[in-house]
């Protein structure tokens, strides 16, 4: 237990050190990409739980991210003034769950409060995860990958084809997300530092929850399901329910990430739902070592930051595809667990993989 939280403390130290470094270097604009990286990382540690610990692949998690982002964006921008007569709208207004917003041209809009929008977005993602996960998680291996891929494509096409969601343009003008103590999640440069800490604070909270889970009775049961599913059932573990719950949990992480990144960026577009995003998330979990939350988090920090800063240029998506292929071929246990030198020696000495020999 001591080790569990000392790693958390060390990581929090790293987060602070990075902020201080950007300050000393006079380059605080780096914090913008680092904040976005934090929200993607939240999705990735949730996905790591699903892939690495429950042993279930998902190639559709960008879909859950997009559900979170789009629902929150839609509700906080869509003008309800025309629907004032509806009982639900009147009720929400009375409960203080609607806000008056003025747009660029001075017109007044009646929109849903971000808190309620966030709750609705995450709830919808959770419900969809339950409905989709129920039948889909009966599949294994390639079939599960294909089915979740299909789900991701559906969400992408829906986002791209729905006029109400801005079609190819997506939704913009999404307001900031107000928090207690005068804090706000927003991309405004004046709140850059506080947003950096809010985002990474959320990631650290997510990590603590998942690290606790791994060390718990449920974590043990998930390792058992991953290790030998029939044997897990034979000692009373409801394997289907545990897989489904983990799927829903990771979808909830993804949707929360989608909600906050959308409010931070002030908008969301269909590319956030694309299959290439889902592949990227899986690639990062893989390079982090699959059943290794810290590995996934550190790899997410480095790779998302590099990608968002544009270091991969036009090859952005290709880089993650190549990473996935290389990891599967040469380091299925992830980059951080392998002795790179030994791998290179093995390659040089003929290339027969030791997995085959074993």
């Amino acid at each position: 237990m001591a080790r569990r939280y000392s790693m958390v403390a060390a990581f929090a130290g790293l987060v602070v050190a990075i902020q201080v470094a950007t300050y000393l270097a006079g380059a605080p604009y780096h914090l913008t990409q680092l904040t976005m990286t934090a929200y993607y990382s939240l999705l990735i540690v949730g996905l790591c739980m699903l892939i690495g610990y429950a042993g279930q692949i998902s190639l559709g998690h960008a879909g859950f991210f997009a559900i979170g982002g789009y629902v929150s964006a839609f509700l906080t921008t869509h003008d309800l003034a025309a629907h004032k007569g509806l009982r639900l709208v009147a009720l929400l207004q009375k409960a203080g769950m609607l806000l008056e917003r003025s747009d660029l041209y001075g017109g007044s809009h009646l929109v849903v409060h971000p808190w309620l929008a966030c709750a609705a977005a995450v709830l919808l993602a959770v419900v969809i995860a339950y409905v989709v996960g129920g039948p889909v998680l009966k599949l294994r291996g390639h079939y599960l990958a294909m089915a979740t891929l299909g789900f991701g494509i559906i969400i992408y096409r829906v986002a791209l084809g729905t006029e109400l969601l801005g079609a190819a343009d997506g939704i913009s003008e999404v307001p900031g997300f107000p928090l207690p103590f005068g804090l706000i999640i927003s991309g405004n440069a004046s709140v850059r530092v506080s947003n950096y800490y809010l985002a990474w604070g959320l990631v650290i909270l997510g990590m603590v929850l998942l690290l606790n889970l791994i060390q718990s009775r449920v974590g043990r049961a998930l390792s058992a399901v991953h290790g030998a599913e029939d044997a897990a059932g034979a000692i009373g573990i409801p394997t289907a329910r545990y897989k489904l719950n983990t799927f829903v949990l990771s979808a909830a992480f993804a949707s929360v990430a989608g909600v906050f990144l959308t409010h931070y960026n002030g908008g969301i577009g269909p590319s956030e739902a694309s299959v290439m995003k889902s592949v990227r998330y899986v690639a990062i979990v893989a390079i982090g070592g699959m059943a290794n939350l810290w590995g996934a988090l550190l790899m997410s920090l480095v790779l998302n930051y590099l990608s968002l800063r544009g270091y991969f240029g036009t090859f952005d998506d290709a880089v993650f595809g190549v990473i996935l292929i290389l990891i599967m071929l040469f380091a299925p246990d992830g980059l951080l667990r392998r002795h790179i030198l030994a791998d290179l020696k093995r390659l040089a000495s003929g290339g027969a993989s030791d997995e085959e020999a074993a």
Partner: protein
Amino acid sequence: MTILSVRRVSKRFGGLQAVSDLSFDVARGSIKALIGPNGAGKTTLFNLISGFLPPDSGEIYFGGAPVHDLPSHQIASRGMVRTFQHIRLFPKMTVLENIMVGRHVHSRAGFLAGMLNLPFTWREERRIREKGQEIMELLGIAEHAHTEAASLAYGQQRVVEIGRALACEPRLLLLDEPAAGLNMRETIGMGGLIGKIRDMGITVLLVEHDMSLVMGISDEIVVLSFGQKIAEDRPLAIQKNREVIRVYLGDDA
């Protein structure tokens, strides 16, 4: 007093009638063995009883309640726990962790309690660990507590698998070929262990090929051939049964 009752159970795989109209009872507190030549349907029968396969027809009662419609995990949580012919440990977990997983149905921390690390889960974890320790000492494997299960010798893995099943505190333990792959000394040890389990008040139903083991420990034996029961009796009577001898040794014997 009957703990398990199999009533006219049948199972067909395509053209193969694996289990055919089979009935037998297991008395509480006894050791009962299922024997028969390869392909007689013993493992299929085990899979039917433990909920891994649904029967085509017939009923199975455990402790008086029907279980033939239940999934395996629910049958296990009612107190009927099985092991596997090919050992199915959780390979990357330690011996202690493997046995601790066996406490699953006797503990209750769920996803939320686990994530929030609620205080009641600490006490529960401590009890799970203590019980795991107790079982390892009972089985004489405490020295391997923190060894990865997959790196143990084969015979020890079998013992760990039984330990994991015992952690469930079953009323009925199903052992699928517990002596498979064991040497003679280990087989004798396994016989002693099964007797000890019975003395703990746990009923045992086992499938086994090793005749010295079966004849030595069983109270009753059911003999299967081509999915049908051809004999059910005490070990000495089974040894003299002409039909059993014919099935095992061929017509000329």
